[in-house]
């Protein structure tokens, strides 16, 4: 029951934050709303027994968003941003299309809920170790390779953003 209440609360946080993110005229407000939304997601992680990710989400991700936020401040003249049009010309079409996709997704989940029943009833493997430990186990054995690649990804991200952002290299 508590789960349910918490789920819905977080859901409101997530969706509300999301909606605010995309509707706030001021980009800084958007960023703050995004943080709210991300926090909601973090809450959901907690609900789903993904404690490590919860931590990662808050520490890393939200921190990362702060970076974004700073960039925004660095880049955009807020006064100017407040004056220009917020949405582009195609927003109605876009909304209709998104609504249609939403309806279709609803249809799919409605029709296909059964496909997940197997997942629901999967034999519960007792969690012998803590979440973080299990994650680490998995990450460094089964997912060792992606982990290594991820390091390259981050390297490229660093190099790339430096190349792009620096005036002279």
């Amino acid at each position, binding site marked *: 029951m508590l789960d349910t209440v918490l*789920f819905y609360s977080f859901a409101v946080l997530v969706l509300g934050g999301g909606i605010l993110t995309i509707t706030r005229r001021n980009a800084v407000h958007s960023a703050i709303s995004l943080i709210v939304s991300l926090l909601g997601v973090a809450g959901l992680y907690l609900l789903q027994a993904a404690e490590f990710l919860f931590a990662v989400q808050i520490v890393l991700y939200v921190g990362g968003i702060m970076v974004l936020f700073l960039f925004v401040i660095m880049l955009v003249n807020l006064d100017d941003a407040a004056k220009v049009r917020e949405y*582009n010309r195609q927003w109605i079409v876009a909304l209709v299309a998104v609504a249609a996709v939403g309806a279709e997704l609803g249809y799919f989940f409605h029709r296909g809920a059964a496909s997940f029943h197997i997942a629901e009833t999967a034999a519960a493997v007792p*969690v012998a170790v803590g979440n973080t430990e299990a994650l680490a186990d998995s990450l460094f054995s089964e997912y060792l390779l992606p982990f290594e690649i991820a390091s390259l990804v981050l390297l490229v991200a660093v190099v790339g953003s430096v190349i792009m952002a620096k005036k002279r290299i």
Partner: protein
Amino acid sequence: MHPVTTVHYLALSAALLLIGTVGVLTRRNIVVILMSIELILNAVNINLIAFSHAWHNVGGQVFAIFVITDAVAEAAVGLGILIALFRNKETVQADEIDLLKW
């Protein structure tokens, strides 16, 4: 009240996905578009975590970590490019960058 099932999480994630999509499609400010993309990736993460929970394996969580990594990397590079763009064009409005067309 129904118990919260995986499908609930899916619905939530789908809703977030759509919100992010709306953001990508309608907002003019590229920074906000990047934020919307973060929303989309978070929707994916909700999915992954929910499935991970349902399947009682951590594969989904690990996947989510990589998605987060990717989100960060993309954001970094995206902002880098944005800076380069801003330096040349003095704008961050998505529909004002249309030098290349047709």
